[in-house]
């Protein structure tokens, strides 16, 4: 088990190296000059060149990459071109917000999605099922930013019940987390339903029923437990997507998170900032999926990593 974990953690390294390489050269092929953007419309060529030198952009790309890697080994992500602050500091200021939003959204999605999926799987092709599946389909098919805007219009502007954006108390979390959760809830409900239908049809469920166990026990202890693996997989993968995909939600709701930071950085060609944020995202994604793998063993004792 530990050995497996160690191996998995080790496998992160080549992924991150590959990512950084890809990212680095991808960014350098972006049209537009960060120094120009920083200097503004009225700056002289000398001033722009000066900024270029300060940012190290006058050196060949491989030298820049070498410097980046050396700094990375020292756990230094460099300084933002735009604010001159250490990248790690800028990320640190925003990452907790994105994680809060994502965790709330995921928990919300699980609390709603799993029971909904179970209920509809128990009574397939009844009105309950149709209600759940169609609602879920609506959720999956709706453009997130559109949903967000419509929620603002209804609940903040028309009804005045909830703040339209920003951060503060728990009320500020409601609309953005619902928006972000809508899609995942739908996805989890669908996955739960499919996987429950499958496990309800399996022999061990029939056996359990034949043994005269109560239906609740059969469903929760046997069928759901068995169906959990694909559900957890989906949650793990969706978490990665959530982290990356919070961009539009964060934009609509003025949520000071990572998504917004990355979009702004792309628009300002703030290379160190983009590199740092996406690497952190990649790292989180890989870690979460390792965690998901470990959860399998917990959920299903038949799976052993050795």
């Amino acid at each position, binding site marked *: 088990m530990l050995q497996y974990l160690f191996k998995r953690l080790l496998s992160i390294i080549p992924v991150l190296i590959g990512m950084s390489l890809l990212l680095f050269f991808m960014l350098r092929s972006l049209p537009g000059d960060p120094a120009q953007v920083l*200097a*503004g*419309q009225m700056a002289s060529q000398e001033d722009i060149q000066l900024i270029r030198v300060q940012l190290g952009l006058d050196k060949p790309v491989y030298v820049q990459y070498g410097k980046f890697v050396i700094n990375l080994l020292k756990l230094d992500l460099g300084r933002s071109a735009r604010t001159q602050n250490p990248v790690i500091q800028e990320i640190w200021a925003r990452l907790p*917000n994105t994680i809060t939003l994502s965790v709330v959204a995921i928990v919300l999605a699980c609390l709603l999605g799993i029971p909904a999926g179970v209920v509809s799987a128990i009574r397939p092709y009844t009105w309950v099922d149709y209600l759940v599946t169609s609602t879920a389909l609506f959720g999956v098919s709706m453009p997130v930013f559109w949903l967000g805007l419509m929620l603002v219009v209804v609940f*903040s502007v028309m009804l005045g019940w909830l703040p339209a*954006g*920003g951060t503060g108390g728990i009320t500020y979390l409601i609309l953005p987390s619902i928006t972000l959760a809508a899609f995942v809830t739908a996805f989890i409900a669908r996955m739960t339903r499919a996987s429950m239908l499958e496990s309800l049809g399996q022999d061990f469920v029939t056996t359990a029923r034949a043994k005269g166990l109560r239906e609740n026990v059969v469903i929760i202890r046997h069928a759901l437990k068995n169906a959990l693996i694909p559900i957890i997989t989906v949650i793990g993968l969706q978490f990665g997507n959530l982290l990356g995909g919070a961009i539009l939600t964060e934009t609509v709701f*003025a949520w000071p998170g990572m998504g917004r930071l990355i979009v702004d950085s792309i628009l300002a060609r703030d290379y160190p900032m983009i590199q740092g944020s996406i690497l952190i995202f990649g790292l989180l994604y890989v870690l979460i999926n390792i965690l998901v793998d470990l959860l399998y063993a917990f959920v299903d004792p038949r799976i052993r990593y050795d």
Partner: protein
Amino acid sequence: MSGGKYFKKLFVIGVALMAAAMFLGAGPALAEVKVLTIGIGTDADTLNPQEQTTTLIQNMCDLIYDVPFYQDPEGKLHPRLATKTETSADGLTVTVKLREGVKFSDGTPFNADAVKLTWDRILDPKMRVPLRFAVAMVQECVKVDDYTVQLKLKFPFAPLVPALSMTLVSPIAPSAIEKYGEDVRQHPLGAGPYVLSEWVKGDRIVMTRNPDYWGEKPTVEKIVWKIVPEAATREAMLRTGQIDVCYKPMPSSVAALKADQKVTVEMPLDTRTIFMGLNYQKGVTTDKLVRQAFNYAVDKKAIVKKILFDTAEPMDGPVSPKVFGYAKMANQYDYDPEKAKELLKKANFDFNQVVQMRTPNGRYLFDKQVSEAIQAYLQAIGVKTELRTYDWPTYVAGLLKPIAESELEVFLLGWGPLVLDADMGLYGQFHSSVNPPKGLGAAFYNNPEFDKLMEESRQEQDPEKRKALLLKASEMVWDDCPWMWLHVEKFVIAYSSKIKGMVVTPTEKFFPQYITKAK
């Protein structure tokens, strides 16, 4: 401020107070404002005034640092950290008297050393000062005594004194520079009415009143700049009362906001002009007739009304009406598609070629929509076009190519002078020395006569004579049409109608420190 004026102001405030009290019918309705929350679109990158190029953040810097002179909405200069200036007869030395008895917010004294240090930093080629060009004629700053400095110029430059109202020249406390080095951009320290008290990245910037401020005590104790990138959200927050001030609401909502009793909308004309550059030295637009035809082809009034919801005004001269040296031009290029077609015929225009248009997307108010409308107007007179959109960094890189490599034909751009003087608008866009790659005069306008007029105007110390020179230059460039003259933007700001006394300037700044707020 003279004593009489001060009294007048007190009197006005007193009357306002009484009026408000009567109106509300209960107790002292106007009081000190504990917290003022302002919804804005972007976080500050740096609060070092020498590095800042964004007006909104300069606005914040002004509250923290104060400026040597304050230019009021009418363009008049008021003494702040400096009390008066004197220009030598040859125009090469400007003596600046500083206000005495002023302290930075950490208690260290404000004096000639502090001002000199700031100027040394501005002029140091190793420092990042994007707006240095605005004071590039200054050779050096010399300390005369503790409260006097002299600016030595490389050549006479009449509009220098108004430039001393720019955030660019706000002094930073030397003690802060010593303590933080270049990180002073995150730890601003000045002599202004406010002190930075909290900065939560991406979320809010909080300022509290500087108890030792030299001037009149601000009425607002705490200013919270809340970062809300989405304009629709910002506006919703204003309506729900989460914020008191909404910086630049959506133009499409201006009418509705104005109709709302709970909201006051101010939208003074700005200095920024939006235009379609027409390459003067390359392609179809080298022909003056074609350039004029394009100007007649577009209904600018309709664009302003329908796309911009009257948050702009059509240009009627080459610079904003708000600047010194502006004059309305005699000949207006009013919408006249027939005349446009006629001019094109006269120019033997080839209607089969495709004219390349380009526009940034999201840099200026509805820039892409404006370009799309212009594309349609040109197509309506038979000119085939292709319009491409770019994000700003890509776009600006394309603008700066020298004429040999330039692919520019017809392109949208904006230009917003930072002081209320026509020099930055006319010289900064049309003098041949600012043709790319040296400057952003991307229309490649090149007219030796115009150049000469502008150079003369910079030497002319007499305001009336200078005005006449600027007028002559304006007429020349207006006739030559290196741009499709589109519109002058308005600076829109909406706030709770409980607030009175907000000062809003044509340079897109606003000063809330002396507002009053009904309960």
